[in-house]
């Protein structure tokens, strides 16, 4: 079955109207980097597709306390936006240049693991996601957005409109272990942010990618870090906790065994980078 219609709404309202009309019968596509190969191969055969390139969702807006990034903002724009830590590097970790010109911030929320190189950084920055349908908007924490492998809290008539990132406090680090230097799938990605109170850790974020059904926070590791001086022992304990709580898988890139082991190593290195 070939796709009967491809619509490119010119505004968010128009997009939400279409979504209201067609609901789950409408495939939403931003950059096309995930959906187009599946459509070309016939794996996905959507009757209707809505593209977001013209819906006015490509922006980076600085507000008082946070930065709002439109869902259809190309990753290249994130690479070039220096107002937030972690994100330029995280966006650059995705694909090659052309892919980053096409792939979007919102799209990365729907990328199957071990993709999700941007999301892991957003998690460490406590980002939220603005969802909207034709009637209302809601904002959910990114950490609560995912509900399982390729599953999330989005309702059939809802659209991811933007990602909101609060101006972050603390020190951050992002490390990606891939098999190559660039344009490489992730073995494990770690983003971390440490907020200090004096010399002690007041708040810790340890986010993992590539070692679970979706990018996730290592909450046990985070909890263990609070109150420590982020010394070697604390880092080792948190790294071990993260390795324990991740839910890795095997794929052509790496085995579950290796991913779990590397979760400990890379978390440890990321935290050591912050400590230094």
């Amino acid at each position, binding site marked *: 079955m070939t796709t009967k219609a491809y619509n490119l709404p010119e505004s968010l309202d128009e997009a939400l109207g279409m979504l209201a009309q067609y609901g789950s019968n409408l495939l939403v596509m931003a950059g096309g980097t995930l959906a187009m190969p599946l459509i070309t191969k016939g794996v996905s055969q959507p009757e209707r*597709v809505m593209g977001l390139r013209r819906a006015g969702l490509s922006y980076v807006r600085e507000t008082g306390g946070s930065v709002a990034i439109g869902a259809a903002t190309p990753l290249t724009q994130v690479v070039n936006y220096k107002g937030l830590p972690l994100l330029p590097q995280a966006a650059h970790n995705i694909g090659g240049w052309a892919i980053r010109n096409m792939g979007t911030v919102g799209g990365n929320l729907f990328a199957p693991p071990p993709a999700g190189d941007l999301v892991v950084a957003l998690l460490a920055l406590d980002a939220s996601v603005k969802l909207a349908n034709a009637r209302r908007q809601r904002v959910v924490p990114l950490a609560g957005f995912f509900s399982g492998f390729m599953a999330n809290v989005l309702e059939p008539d809802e659209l991811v409109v933007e990602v909101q990132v609060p101006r972050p406090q603390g020190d951050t680090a992002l490390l990606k272990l891939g098999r190559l230097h660039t344009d490489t799938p992730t073995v494990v990605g770690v983003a971390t942010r440490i907020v200090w109170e004096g010399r002690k850790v007041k708040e810790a974020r340890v986010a993992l990618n590539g070692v679970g059904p979706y990018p996730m926070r290592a909450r046990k590791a985070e909890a263990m870090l609070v109150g420590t001086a982020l010394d070697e022992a604390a880092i080792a304990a948190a790294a071990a906790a993260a390795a324990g709580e991740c839910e890795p898988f095997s794929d052509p890139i790496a085995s579950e065994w290796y991913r779990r082991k590397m979760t400990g190593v890379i978390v440890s290195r990321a935290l050591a980078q912050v400590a230094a």
Partner: protein
Amino acid sequence: MASKIVTFVLNGRETEVMVKPLTTMQVVLRDKLGYNATKVGCKEGACGTCTILVDGEPMLSCLLPAEDVEGRQVTTLEGLTPVDGLHPLQQAFFDNYATQCGYCTPGMIMVAKALLDHNPSPTREEIVDALSGNLCRCTGYEPIIRAVEVVAEGQDSRRPAMAERRRDKEIVR
């Protein structure tokens, strides 16, 4: 099914095509318009050989629905080639043996063109980074990187091509 007319500027010329929904630019360029320089390597955005420029930005034509380029400037390798002779990048690829089978070449040159338009004097690292989404199975990349370096401003274009740079060529009969 609702075919649409899409209008865009292809290599400087106003172009109009009738497409079915989600027809990729790869199909439009090759099968509808006969612009064969844009190659097909994977149809999933993983090899880079189908790279074209849309408003000067590299994009993968296998992932790009034609409807998305409505009103925009599209450049393919055909658009780079002057009537008489070669674009400096083409010349540099030719002179530096940066092609073997030639199948990745169009994508490599298009990315290099965009890079030099954005940044006329890139470092080697910036060149490598720009080319990172493009695979080549024949050359081992060095001649391609070298070809871009030759054209980049601020590089010593008199540095000889790779064959003459051989460190130590010893001929014993």
